């Protein structure tokens, strides 16, 4: 039999339809892979029994001619999506043991499409991090290894690090991610997979544990552009329960993969080539430009002059929103409670013990920038600069159809590296944050390997609600890149 865990979702979907194997067989093969790769710590909660029961139902649906668009495909759910009856932690001690009584809209839609969840994937605590080292449930290991030091454990990126590692290690066919400043795209680049943060408003945020509500957006992570297109189609759509989800038809994203990008104009922002950009990343970017030229697109140099302020803007707005969102963790209605003499004492003790260092730091910064006397100097100022960043993109898209940049300034780094200084760690998101600030769709796909054998990603940015052009161009780049490398042992 074919190696079931190496199939793409599109292939598995067609083979399930032809009856070459059953959803139960496909699910069982992936459950085995999950067990074999437990050392990566990609999962916080595994749900094999639930998955097998769902797979049986999927096979029955198919026999009855009622199979959905993702029926029988085993996936993983980032542990930031509330799943009814299944522990949802946001990788935080403060939510340990929390069993939601409801299902998030996005995970519910995937279920309705027939997708089978193998469990809940690890992440940075409350999605705050770029290396998956801030999880209360331990760091996630990247399945890729450096050629020069195969024993060194590398980070998978973050915050959707468990999702990226599980997809790369063939434990799941795809996974949900969420992206606030790069949390889908940067781990996708570090783990050699594809992931897209859709336009803000494309997917419902209802039932997703909130970090920074004006930026958070769910999206798919998978091994091919087509698989991301299939999965986004099942995740997206208007939801009356999220007032920022947009009431707009969801296109058939798979149909956008025509392979024809002749005449398209591709913006190359000159500000994305800062001093100190790794030579290898710059080379992969140049190669990407050549692929697009060869396919009949025209590269156009553009300027996004406020790019260099995006990181500082983000690190005011995101902590401000996080300090407000995370005020709900008070030890009263759910999650951890540490007893105190008074109500305030209970709040303070619960939150001190329940939150990790990075989350505490961001809540404190957010509290400060929102506090009386500082609001205008920090928060209002950041919101103004945010508008300038968004305007840069709006102007650029008057002359180009899509923008090509690197996803991250380097390949995956080692566990324990760069953890001393939070600001250095944040530089990982320098190429992804501007897109988030503007609410635009951004996709990362693997474009090559570094000389040390690690994946490097390129990012495509599109106009608002024009994921179709992003997918179309990504499909062409994927074919040109022919990225067939795999981490060891899969």
């Amino acid at each position, binding site marked *: 039999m074919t190696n079931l865990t190496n199939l793409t979702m599109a292939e598995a979907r067609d083979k399930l339809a032809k009856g070459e194997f059953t959803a139960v067989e496909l699910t069982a093969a992936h459950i085995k892979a999950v067990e074999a790769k437990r050392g990566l710590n990609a999962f916080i909660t595994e749900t094999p029994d639930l998955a097998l029961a769902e797979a049986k139902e999927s096979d029955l649906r198919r026999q009855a001619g009622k199979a959905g668009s993702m029926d029988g495909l085993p996936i993983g759910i980032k542990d930031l999506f509330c799943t009814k009856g299944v522990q949802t932690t946001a990788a935080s001690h403060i939510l340990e043991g929390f069993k939601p009584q409801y299902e998030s809209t996005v995970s519910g839609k995937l279920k309705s499409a027939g997708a089978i969840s193998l469990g809940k994937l690890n992440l940075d605590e409350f999605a705050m991090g770029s290396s998956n080292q801030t999880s209360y449930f331990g760091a996630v290991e990247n399945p890729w290894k450096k050629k020069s030091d195969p024993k060194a454990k590398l980070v998978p990126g973050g915050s959707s690090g468990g999702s990226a590692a599980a997809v790369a290690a063939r434990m799941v066919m795809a996974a949900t991610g969420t992206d606030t400043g790069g949390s889908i795209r940067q781990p996708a680049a570090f783990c050699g997979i594809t992931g897209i943060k859709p336009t803000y408003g494309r997917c419902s945020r209802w039932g997703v544990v909130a970090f920074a509500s004006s930026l958070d957006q769910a999206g798919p992570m998978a091994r091919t552009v087509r698989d991301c297109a299939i999965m986004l189609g099942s995740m997206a759509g208007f939801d009356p329960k999220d007032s920022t989800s947009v009431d707009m038809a969801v296109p058939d994203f798979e149909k956008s993969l025509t392979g024809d990008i002749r005449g398209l104009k591709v913006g190359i922002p000159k500000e994305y080539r800062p001093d100190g950009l790794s030579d290898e990343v710059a080379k992969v970017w140049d190669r990407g430009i050549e692929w697009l030229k060869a396919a009949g697109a025209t590269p156009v140099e553009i300027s996004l002059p406020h790019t260099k302020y995006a990181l500082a*803007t983000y690190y005011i707005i995101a902590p401000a929103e996080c300090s407000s969102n995370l005020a709900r963790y008070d030890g009263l*209605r759910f999650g951890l409670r540490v007893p105190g003499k008074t109500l305030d004492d209970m709040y303070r003790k619960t*939150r001190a013990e329940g939150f990790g260092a990075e989350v505490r730091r961001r809540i*404190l910064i957010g509290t*400060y920038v929102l506090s009386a006397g500082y609001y205008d100097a*920090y928060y209002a100022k950041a*919101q*103004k600069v945010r508008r300038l960043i968004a305007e840069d993109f709006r102007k650029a898209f008057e002359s180009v159809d899509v923008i090509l940049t690197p996803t991250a300034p380097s390949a995956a780094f080692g566990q324990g590296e760069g953890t001393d200084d*939070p600001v250095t760690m944040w530089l990982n998101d320098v190429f992804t944050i501007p897109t988030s600030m*503007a609410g635009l769709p951004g996709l990362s796909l693997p474009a090559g390997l570094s000389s040390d054998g690690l994946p490097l990603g390129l990012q495509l940015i599109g106009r608002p609600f024009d994921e179709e052009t992003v997918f179309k161009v990504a499909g062409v780049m994927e074919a040109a890149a022919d990225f067939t490398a795999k981490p060891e042992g899969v």
Partner: protein
Amino acid sequence: MSLDKATVRNIANLARIEVKDEELDHLAGELSNILHFVEQLAEVNTDGVLPMTSVAAMTLPMRKDVITDGGQPEAVLANAPEAEDGFFTVPKVVE
């Protein structure tokens, strides 16, 4: 802006997070570094720029003000650290 220990203690109190005295120095240093980093925004001219509160130019939709859910006290209390007789319990707040 560099933060002193008293300011950090005050922020932690506003955020309802207990911080031990011996952590204050370290935390003040970390938070000050972050503030120095974000203060580069001061050099950007934002005269006449309106703050951006939403990425999409949309008006929030209105819905009918009706009850659509309810009557599930068990589900509401299912994750409570402590509950009694259909209520959440808290430490005494009135002396």
